[in-house]
């Protein structure tokens, strides 16, 4: 059956793709522009952006408040670090898939405990469950000498492909950037798929979705496990980039940092997670170095930066819940469409609607 679409049908300006292209164009030539230190810094941002994407997927798209992303990050980092130091493994083709797999498995186990069940768990239950899990594992690792206790595991060998060693610097940057782009595109496709539409429904009104006959826990469990996979990969990359993994990379502090990245950048938009990591990490490093602030403020920022971050989070949540992206992107574009008829037909108004357009990014 053909229906006509009236001229009143709204269309919205597309800004998000331009932000994505701009970020890509900025990132690609960085090794030619920056010195060694800043290349390492940019690599760390790419790695932490994967962690932020994993939190954005669970909270921004599926409405699961997880304070456990660092758990998947850290356990994967520790596992790969142990494989490298105790078993002499260094192949990136083995260690990074293992990191992703460990993240997936640990997240699935946590999902079995806090998500799957006869009744749908509340947001608070999941938040506290993941926070507790993260905290407990951090405390256990701190006291476990086999994994280095308080000191963690250091002096990790370089990752390699065959006989080629991936040095921290240009090679590592492009590897991290490539993985970030791959997972960004994967998530971009996923959150705009029909599966993503169900996630959007769950986020807005979980009980309504139940009454359509969806198994909400399955959708949440799959999403949570996939986010664990991404956080695990991020943890594996982090351990080998920094040459170190410690208990601090397992606990609630890093998990909370992931929350902050996403809320500040713009929850529910993938590009917002990347913007959040970039801006916060840059400010965190640059601000204490600004002489104009005076020695007192500089000294405070060196130790009291988490307080500033906490205040920033509070201000963002209270006054700008859409984050940085909200300044550039309209509400309509942020929400997007999952299967609306072609825009050209909506705009012209008199042509028949035929097939749905692929969803917006």
């Amino acid at each position, binding site marked *: 059956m053909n*229906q006509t679409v009236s001229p009143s049908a709204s269309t919205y300006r597309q800004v998000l793709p331009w932000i994505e292209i701009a970020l890509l164009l900025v990132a690609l030539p960085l090794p030619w522009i920056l010195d060694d230190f800043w290349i390492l810094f940019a690599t760390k941002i790419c790695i932490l952006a994967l962690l932020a994407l994993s939190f954005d997927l669970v909270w921004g798209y599926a409405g699961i408040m997880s304070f456990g992303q660092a758990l998947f990050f850290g356990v994967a980092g520790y596992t790969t670090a142990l494989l490298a130091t105790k078993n002499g493994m260094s192949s990136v083709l083995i260690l990074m898939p293992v990191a992703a797999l460990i993240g997936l498995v640990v997240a699935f186990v946590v999902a079995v405990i806090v998500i799957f069940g006869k009744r749908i768990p509340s947001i608070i239950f999941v938040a506290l469950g993941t926070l507790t899990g993260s905290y407990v594992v951090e405390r256990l690792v701190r006291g476990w000498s086999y994994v280095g206790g308080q000191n963690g595991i250091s002096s990790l060998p370089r990752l390699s492909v065959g006989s080629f060693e991936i040095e921290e610097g240009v090679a590592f940057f492009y590897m991290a950037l490539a993985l970030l782009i791959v997972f960004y595109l994967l998530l971009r496709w996923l959150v705009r798929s029909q599966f993503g539409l169900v996630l959007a429904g769950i986020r807005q009104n979980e009980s309504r979705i*139940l*009454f359509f*006959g969806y198994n909400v826990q399955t*959708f949440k469990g799959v999403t949570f496990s996939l986010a664990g996979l991404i956080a695990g990969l991020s943890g594996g990359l982090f351990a080998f980039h920094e040459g170190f993994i410690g208990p601090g990379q397992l606990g609630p502090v890093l998990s909370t940092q992931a929350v902050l990245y996403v809320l500040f950048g713009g929850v529910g938009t993938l590009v917002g997670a990347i913007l959040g990591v970039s801006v916060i990490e840059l400010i965190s490093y640059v601000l204490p170095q600004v002489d104009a602030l005076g020695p007192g403020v500089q000294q405070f920022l060196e130790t009291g930066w988490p307080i500033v971050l906490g205040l920033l989070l509070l201000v963002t949540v209270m006054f700008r819940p859409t984050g940085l992206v909200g300044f550039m992107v309209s509400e309509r574009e942020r929400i997007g469409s999952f299967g609306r008829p072609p825009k050209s037909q909506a705009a012209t108004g008199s042509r028949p609607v035929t097939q749905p357009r692929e969803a917006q990014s």
Partner: protein
Amino acid sequence: MSLLEARNIRKIYGSLKALDGASLVVSGNEFHGLIGPNGSGKSTLLKCIAGAEIPTEGTILLGNRDITSFTAAERARAGLSLKFQITAVLPELSVYDNILIALQANSSLFVLLLSLSRKALHEKAMDCLARFKLVDKHDQLAAYLSHGEQQWLEIAMALAREPKLLLLDEPTAGMSPQERRATGELLAPIKSSCSLLIVEHDLDFIKDICDSLTVLDQGQVVASGPTQEVQNSQRVKEAYLSHA
């Protein structure tokens, strides 16, 4: 043959008996009204049937299948569809996507992951929108529809899955007389494909569209049968007058 049978449903909240042995039968292709004074247990009975509440006692059969222990999602998959009393459209989705999410509920996880049914469901989605006069608003966020349009959208969503039995909890609440009339006209054609169990305060509306009625008072069935017969029942008049 009966499509839905609720037998001796009791629902007790602490010391309050919301339902006290209420029974109800809905036949295939029948529009059945559930009426009664405020607090008589109409919405509670509807929620027990839909799976939003678990009855303290009683049995619910859909066809010959005992669905008493089914979850809400399992009942939906068995052929029940509910429209909530309070409008529950998904406000941050477009009107089109609200319909699509209802339509694709029967698709498997694999199909949804790969978006394999999106194109196939497009025609159905447009049909649903056309039937409820929402084609022009397909791209608007549901939050920006008028109250009446949101009610229609929710009925369209409930019908999109082609249920055997549609449960409507006060579908015309807050609507203007014109919108109520239009709602009746929109519901009439679905009789050929599904049955309807409707809770409604507007007796004129319910008398116009329902074949049969069940009247509840204080959690018990006062009368049940063809609309005309129940309407003239002395017990029904007394039940309503005692609350006037």
